[in-house]
């Protein structure tokens, strides 16, 4: 009876909801298309149209049932995770980083812009920005009190009402307030009044000076020349920078493709290859160790508190989850203080004088302990959910068979839990493998051997990458991306192996 009612309700509600949702999707797509049409972004419009068409196809065809379930999340995943990650990974083939972020044209503009100087001995002016028939002009008062109109042709003496060194009124001109002038920002920046040497430009909106770019780019020699000294910096298009004959580089460079050199550098750089194996081993130990201890404690607590008749059960649960509810970065900082040798509570409470973060073994123990604290509520929650999801009939059946509690756990509960949780444990391993904050906010990778400060005893590959990429003169995104690709490959390999093992369990119910 019940089933029949459901089916009847479903046969009506189902299609109605489907039509409503598809209609909403269409409306959304049209709304999204309008700005694209307005901006003539035809390429993006095509992407939008294709996506919408695909969505309609998937939800209207009776086939591709799996796709109906996968598509909504996948769209978000592709747009906001896959695309950024692929794009970032592609920078591994470039020198992208500080000093090499933009194009060559942008670098040239930056070089010239940075070299603008006041022409020595030239005049400074009080400025009023005005318009004449809509075009920008400068009304200028120099130090002697002489007044000029500056336009695209040059300076022309003129008369206006000046008070306190400022132009207050001028016939035939409309004076612009700061706000009005700001609306014409681009016109004002592009505007300059040519003089014999250099040009009068605005410095802000109420002063002007006679300035000149002292370095200029010449496409003929593909070089930058200094007007004063005649020194030349020639473009090095393989490295993305301007270099002088004496080896001096201009600070502003541009992004160029460098092929595989970032990848080979990872292999040849002694700072990386020399420590790679050691760091990798610890990285695995940390990730596996963190997963095991958090899972062990979390599961233990979940089992202990998983009894219907246990009084105060929900209070225990809330209190256990608290570490997870507190902002993680704050708690990591608190833990760092707890391990302080002189002031930390751990040493004082137990009457110790251990230099926790000063020795490799204790530092490693400490970071795992912190991870245990940070992570076990998560495992506790998940294990609690998993225990609840195990059909009672199964454990009850075992009880009737006369199995002891331990036997029940080992033979019934644990295998079922592992089916449910193995994917999660793999995911957790992957997360901890790259757990940047856990290390960076506590030991910062230390302790470091005094004779080689490049890699510390608790450094993970990711913290190590971070220092290499950002520790020198500015960020080196390309290089860091190359290291990340290596790490990525390693984790992928390990996860695939782990995943293969989980297949057997997965097929239990398949």
């Amino acid at each position, binding site marked *: 009876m019940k089933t029949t009612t*459901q*089916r009847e309700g*479903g046969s009506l509600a*189902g299609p109605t909801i489907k039509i409503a949702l598809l209609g909403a999707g269409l409306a959304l797509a049209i709304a999204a298309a309008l*700005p694209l049409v307005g901006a003539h972004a035809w390429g993006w419009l095509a992407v939008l149209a294709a996506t919408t068409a695909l969505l309609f196809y998937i939800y209207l065809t009776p086939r591709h*049932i*799996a796709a109906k*379930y996968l598509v909504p*999340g*996948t769209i*978000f*995943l592709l747009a*906001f995770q896959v*695309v*950024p*990650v692929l794009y*970032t*990974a592609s920078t591994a083939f470039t020198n992208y980083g500080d000093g090499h972020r933009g194009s060559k044209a942008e670098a040239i503009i930056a070089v010239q812009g940075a070299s603008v100087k006041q022409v020595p001995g030239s005049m400074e002016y009080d400025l009023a920005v005005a318009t004449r028939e809509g075009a920008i002009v400068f009304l200028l008062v120099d130090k002697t009190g002489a007044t000029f109109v500056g336009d695209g042709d040059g300076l022309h003496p003129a008369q206006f009402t000046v008070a306190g060194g400022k132009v207050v009124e001028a016939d035939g001109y409309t004076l612009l307030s700061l706000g009005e002038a700001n609306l014409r920002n681009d016109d004002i920046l592009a505007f300059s009044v040519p003089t014999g040497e250099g040009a009068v430009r605005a410095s802000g909106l109420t002063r002007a000076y006679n300035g000149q770019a002292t370095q200029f780019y010449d496409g003929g020699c593909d070089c930058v020349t200094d007007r004063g000294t005649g020194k030349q910096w020639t473009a090095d298009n393989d490295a993305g920078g301007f270099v002088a004959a004496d080896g001096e580089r201009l600070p502003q460079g541009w992004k160029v493709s460098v092929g595989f050199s970032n990848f080979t550098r990872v292999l040849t750089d002694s700072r990386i290859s020399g420590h790679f194996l050691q760091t990798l081993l610890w990285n695995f130990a940390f990730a596996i160790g963190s997963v095991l201890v958090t899972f062990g*404690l979390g599961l*233990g*607590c979940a089992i202990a*508190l998983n009894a219907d008749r*246990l009084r105060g059960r929900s209070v*225990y*649960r*809330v*209190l*256990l*989850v*608290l*570490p997870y*509810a*507190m*902002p993680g970065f*704050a708690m990591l900082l608190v833990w760092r*203080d707890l391990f*302080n040798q002189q*002031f930390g509570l751990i040493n004082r409470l137990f009457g110790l004088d251990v230099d926790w973060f000063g020795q490799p073994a204790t530092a490693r123990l400490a970071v795992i302990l912190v991870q245990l604290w940070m992570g076990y*509520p998560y495992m506790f*929650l*998940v294990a609690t*959910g*998993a225990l*609840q*999801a195990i059909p*009672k*009939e199964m454990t009850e059946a075992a009880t009737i068979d006369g199995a002891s509690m331990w036997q029940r756990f080992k033979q019934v509960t644990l295998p079922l839990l592992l*089916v*449910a949780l193995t994917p*999660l444990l*793999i*995911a957790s391993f992957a997360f901890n493998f790259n757990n940047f904050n856990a290390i960076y906010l506590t030991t910062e990778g230390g302790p470091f051997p005094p004779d080689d400060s490049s890699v510390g005893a608790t450094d993970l590959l990711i913290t190590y*990458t971070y220092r290499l990429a950002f520790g020198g003169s500015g960020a080196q995104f390309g290089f*860091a991306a190359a290291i*990340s690709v290596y790490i990525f490959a390693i984790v*992928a390999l390990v*996860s*695939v192996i782990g995943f293969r093992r989980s297949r057997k369990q997965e097929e239990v*119910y*398949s």
Partner: protein
Amino acid sequence: MSVPKRSERAGVGKWMRQMGWRHLAGIAAVVFSLFPIVFVVSAAFNPVGSLSSTELYPTGASTANFIDLFTRTAFSRWYVNSVVIALTASAVGVFLSVLAAYAFSRMRFAGRRVGLMALLLIQMFPQFLAVVTIYLLFAGIGDFYPSFGLDSPWGLMLLYLGGALGVGTWLMKGFLDTVPRELDESAVMDGATHAQTFFRITLPLIAPILAVTALLGFIGTINEVLLANVFLRSDDSKTLAVGLYGLIAGQRNANFGMFCAGSLLTAIPTVLVFQSLQRYIVSGLTAGAVKG
């Protein structure tokens, strides 16, 4: 010292075996959980507001830090933003990931295992690198749709939804694997469509794990700093994590008390969400549903 009578001892022994050890374990775990948090509480009520890890008890009792938090910062605004963003992102995120998990668990299609692997691996890429690209991406989106660009909570929410499929799908797929397929199959035999089976049979069965995933999503979102910091700039649009981070970013000492007070208040919505979800997590829904 008097020896308890035999029956009494047996009673205590039985109680210990059945319930007592659970309490002991629970108390031990609670002590372990709370001990670092005590410092936060103590610093929050310490008028000087500095962190002094040598003392567990508060050296002063003052609510000045809490008052400062509300009068000197846009704390209540951050609070509302955080709760709205985290609730929405976790609710939609759970929905998206349970859909995907259902497909991964119940259906066999080309690229299934590769898809699952890819889902995991994509999470492995260091975010501090991808953040630059994400910035460029949303700068572009903002050109067309200002409400979803940078400095907009909506854009941030989209970004969070991009990560929804990640761990959530893995978590729920594992659980769906334990739900006997016979249940679906019998429903289909009764003539239910796949959508009806999913919404009416499967979803209620895994209510506990939906609740857990929602909670984890909520906590993850409300504590997220890196991306939110890039997105939200104006004071009114910030989330708790970003706002609180700002209090200690430059000068840790000066605002540490306020920061701790804020951290404690941040935990409240999480605890409330947990409380409201607890009945789903712990109730014997599963058994009932199987029978129904």
